[in-house]
């Protein structure tokens, strides 16, 4: 055991603390090339990460940068700086600590490059930017340690891939660099260790004491949850009662729109004027910071929030977490629960509130999963090549490079360890010439090779490349502010703004505002006293229920009785069992029944919201081909319901795996979700510029043109790298075809078709579900024609317009 330096031992003693076992473990293994610490929130995780650094720097002999700390949130970097300063100042250690994020001033940033501090706290994007400068080798030369905080959150996204590529780069500049990852509880620590380590070097995994199991239950309410919807308004009195009984409550929601609506309803019922705030990603930074500050001061009894509070600053006094709506994912639920009670070795307290009847089932399944420590997660695919393309361009910004060296460096990164040289070369070619089958840009290459080394043809291009660093998807948001004021209220999606007409009301930051107009891409609003707003459709993230949780729900359906469910839900499922049958993991249940004079068919695929949506697109297309005239569909995490003019008599051919796969390969190419996927990857890979001046004016214009680029590639260059990447990405995310594959493998073509003369109990909630999709194509064109004709008629313009005499000339089209 490595003894704590005396000054540290004294400091611990003076505070009446003793070192946690996992902090000692980290100190003992400080020389390891890579370490991953799994610890619950409040376990002194950050100090465990920093102790070896502080010990090594204590004698004041190290010059230059010693430790880099990377976290997913800017706010976290600033918070850690504050927290680290306490021990450093108490012990009078000769250590300089600074942070560097998008908010750091230009002067400060410049100075940091010339004279770096001992400890630099930053984000993945700021680090990627630092590695793009020509002076990176000098800045990082003496770097000893890198600490990646909340690595479980980064590891799930492309931000993590970008960070690990940057680590590969740093390792080359500072071969002695040791890596440390700090993670919350995850289902597969080894997968994260494999991402963190510098292949083939190992990564040891340390587990802190996970602490006591959480105290978690479903909220008991007087009223039963409704059949559909996500508002959970029925639970407001019970939630308010819980808020009253606790010091500080975090009320988590799955989407921003739901958070806004719930907050609004909560205030209408808040007769005691309990101080309750709201916090989500669409609110203006100033507004979020005000809420955070009030929270730190202990001024708030509750905060209605979204994933924006999943990570971040430790709120000391939170003693209850309420999750509104089905948790969708057990791992995230456990991490959210951990936000309550940061005292080590005290159980966190949490309550689940299902928003509708089906979510009752999902909540019970999630509770059982938490008790069984059965966390979920999907294995990550190979390293995304759009991120690699960006990394190649970043490398080129820093100076000429050798392709063999870069390939070797990239394959030390876990996610890219299996990358073939051919795949790497494809990315390099894409960066150099665009990689088109038509060789077009030999004269205007982006990267050129001189004396064996690759470099930017035009060094000025580095400015654009740096401006486009990052992998966070930016939707087209427009700012909202009060008329005549410059203080922003927050942001809404441009698509939503486009549907507003003056006089419409919507919710933002818990206030009802009236839309006045759009001015230079800013939405101007005034306060409105109305009681009921037109609801803001923030996109937010719509999580899909995880594969493991879906499987658990299917297992629950097969129970002989439903005594573990509340009576109202048990009765509903019993009724379904009598009228039809329960869905099973190994079979696809299909139910057909007439409703409202139209044949309806429900496919219980249990593949998660995104995949069920894709399934709806594929099935309706196939039905169109078979002249079943589908009119529309609606999807949830567990089922897709389609209605049309003709009844489905034999669903088996519709679900034929070969047809579905073929539809994915061909027809889906033309679909908006594929185009969105393409746009995201093309922006990361540097094909489209994020900050293109003309695209800033209207985000919509950029959407338009990336769609055209996509169509052009599909038509003229179907094997292009960007299309390969788009198809890979479509296995996950919005399209999520991987989950459809999982469903097909699980059910192997076994279909049970039940036909009834009216809606079945399990299908009933689907009739109330929002988010209906009208079948596009022929229908959309007809809708446009009818709408324009109606407008001509209504205006009377078709009467007064001078028209040529009867024989109209027409183009045979």
């Amino acid at each position, binding site marked *: 055991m490595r003894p704590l330096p005396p000054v540290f031992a004294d400091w611990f003693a003076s505070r009446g603390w003793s070192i946690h076992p996992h902090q000692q473990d980290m100190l003992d293994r400080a020389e390891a090339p890579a370490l991953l610490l799994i610890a619950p929130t409040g376990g002194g995780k950050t100090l465990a990460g920093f102790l070896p650094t502080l010990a090594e720097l204590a004698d004041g002999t190290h010059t230059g940068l010693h430790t880099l700390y990377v976290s997913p949130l800017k706010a976290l970097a600033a918070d850690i700086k504050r927290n680290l300063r306490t021990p450093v100042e108490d012990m009078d250690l000769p250590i300089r600590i600074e942070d560097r994020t998008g908010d750091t001033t230009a002067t400060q940033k410049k100075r940091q490059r010339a004279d770096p501090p001992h400890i630099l706290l930053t984000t993945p994007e700021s680090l990627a930017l630092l590695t793009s400068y020509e002076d990176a080798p000098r800045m990082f030369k003496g770097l000893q340690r890198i600490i990646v905080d909340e690595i479980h959150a980064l590891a799930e996204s492309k931000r993590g891939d970008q960070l690990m590529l940057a680590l590969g780069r740093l390792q080359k500049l500072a071969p002695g660099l040791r890596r440390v990852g700090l993670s919350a509880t995850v289902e597969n620590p080894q997968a994260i260790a494999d991402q963190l380590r510098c292949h083939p070097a190992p990564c040891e995994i340390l587990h802190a004491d996970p602490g006591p199991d959480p105290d978690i239950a479903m909220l008991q309410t007087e009223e039963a949850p409704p059949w559909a919807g996500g508002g959970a308004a029925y639970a407001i009195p019970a939630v308010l009662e819980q808020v009253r009984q606790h010091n500080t409550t975090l009320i988590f929601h799955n989407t921003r729109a739901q958070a806004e609506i719930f907050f609004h309803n909560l205030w209408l019922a808040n007769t005691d004027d309990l101080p309750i705030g709201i916090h989500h990603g669409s609110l203006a930074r100033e507004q979020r910071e005000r809420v955070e500050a009030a929270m730190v001061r202990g001024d708030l009894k509750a905060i209605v929030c979204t994933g924006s509070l999943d990570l971040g600053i430790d709120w000391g006094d939170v003693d209850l977490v309420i999750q509104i709506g089905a948790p969708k994912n057990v791992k995230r639920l456990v991490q959210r629960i951990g936000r309550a009670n940061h005292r080590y070795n005290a159980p966190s307290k949490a309550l689940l509130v299902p928003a509708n009847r089906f979510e009752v089932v999902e909540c019970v399944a999630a509770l059982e999963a938490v008790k069984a420590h059965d966390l979920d997660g999907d294995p990550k695919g190979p390293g995304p090549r759009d991120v690699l393309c960006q990394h190649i361009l970043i490398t080129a910004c820093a100076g000429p490079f050798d392709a063999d060296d870069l390939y070797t460096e990239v394959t030390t990164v876990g996610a890219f360890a299996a990358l073939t040289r051919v795949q790497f070369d494809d990315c390099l070619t894409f960066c150099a010439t665009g990689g088109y089958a038509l060789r077009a840009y030999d004269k205007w290459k982006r990267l050129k090779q001189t004396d064996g080394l690759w470099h930017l043809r035009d060094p000025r291009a580095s400015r654009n490349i740096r401006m486009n660093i990052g992998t966070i998807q930016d939707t087209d948001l427009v700012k909202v502010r009060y008329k005549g004021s410059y203080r922003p209220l927050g942001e809404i999606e441009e698509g939503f703004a486009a549907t507003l007409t003056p006089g419409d009301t919507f919710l933002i930051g818990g206030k009802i505002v009236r839309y006045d107009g759009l001015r230079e891409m800013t939405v101007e609003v005034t306060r409105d006293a109305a009681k009921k707003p037109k609801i803001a459709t923030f996109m937010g993230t719509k999580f899909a229920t995880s594969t493991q949780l879906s499987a658990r729900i299917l297992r629950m359906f097969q129970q002989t009785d439903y005594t573990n469910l509340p009576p109202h839900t048990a009765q509903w499922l019993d009724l379904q069992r009598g009228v039809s049958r329960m869905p099973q993991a190994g079979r696809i249940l299909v139910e057909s029944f007439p409703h409202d004079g139209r044949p309806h068919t429900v496919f219980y695929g249990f593949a998660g919201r995104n995949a069920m949506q894709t399934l709806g697109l594929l099935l309706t297309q196939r039905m169109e081909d078979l002249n079943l005239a589908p009119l529309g569909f609606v999807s949830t995490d567990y089922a897709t319901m389609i209605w049309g003019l003709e009844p489905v008599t034999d669903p088996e051919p519709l679900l034929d795996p070969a047809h579905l796969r073929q539809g994915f390969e061909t027809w889906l190419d033309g679909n908006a979700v594929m185009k969105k996927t393409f746009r995201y990857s093309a922006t990361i890979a540097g094909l489209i510029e994020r900050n293109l001046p003309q695209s800033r004016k209207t985000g919509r214009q950029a959407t338009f043109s990336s769609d055209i680029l996509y169509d052009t590639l599909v038509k*003229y260059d179907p094997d292009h790298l960007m299309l390969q990447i788009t198809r890979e990405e479509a296995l996950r995310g919005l399209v999520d075809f991987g989950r459809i594959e999982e469903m097909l493998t699980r059910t192997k073509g076994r279909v049970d078709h039940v036909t009834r003369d009216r809606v079945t109990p399990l299908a009933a909630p689907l009739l109330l579900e929002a988010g209906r999709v009208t079948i596009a194509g022929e229908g959309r064109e007809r809708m446009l024609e009818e709408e324009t004709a109606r*407008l001509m008629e209504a205006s009377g313009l078709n009467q007064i317009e001078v028209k040529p005499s009867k024989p109209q*000339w027409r183009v045979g089209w």
Partner: protein
Amino acid sequence: MNGGYSFTLSDRTLTALPSGALWWDAHRLLCVSDLHLCKSERLARRRGLMLPPYETRETLDRLGALIDRLDPAQVICLGDSFDDLDAAAAMDEADTSRLCLMQAGRDWIWIEGNHDPGPMDVGGRHLNELRQDSLIFRHIATPHGSGEISGHYHPKCSPGRGGTRPAFLIDCARVIMPAFGAFTGGLRATHPNLKALMGPNATAVLTGRRAMPMPFAAAC
């Protein structure tokens, strides 16, 4: 069958085609605007962006299909036909010969635009503007023009739902044409520059499967 939208301008009957081209039957005249050929080449040269270099082929495919179908005697390209003069010089050989084939046996007129202000090394006549009968073809609309057919603004329109489309803007004095080129964005018809040019009873004709007229005022 679906088709174009016919209207009169200075007593001449013209047809706005669903593809965004304009047809003058009396002269068998086809007019297209803002082709922006070789746009990707210019973006690569000037900004280091490597967009798919297929837009020239795509635009010529569409134009070729129209010419095959209509067999015009006269073709007017209403300016910004090339993304810049260097781009015209850099055009791919296959595309150049494609263009030559289309030009054979027709009166082909290039009107100068702000992107291509000067003669280019391609066949056809190069004019600043063209008067024919009571109509005038020029790249940018003038405030007091009459019988004026122009392009430049790439107008696009939305009827409120169902999406946005490139559109012709038509009133009793002028026609502003949509861009015909493949990689061209658009300017919303609500833009003040366009509102200032068009009269109160103007019509917007959306392109698509068929030409779809709607009141310009409803798009604003």
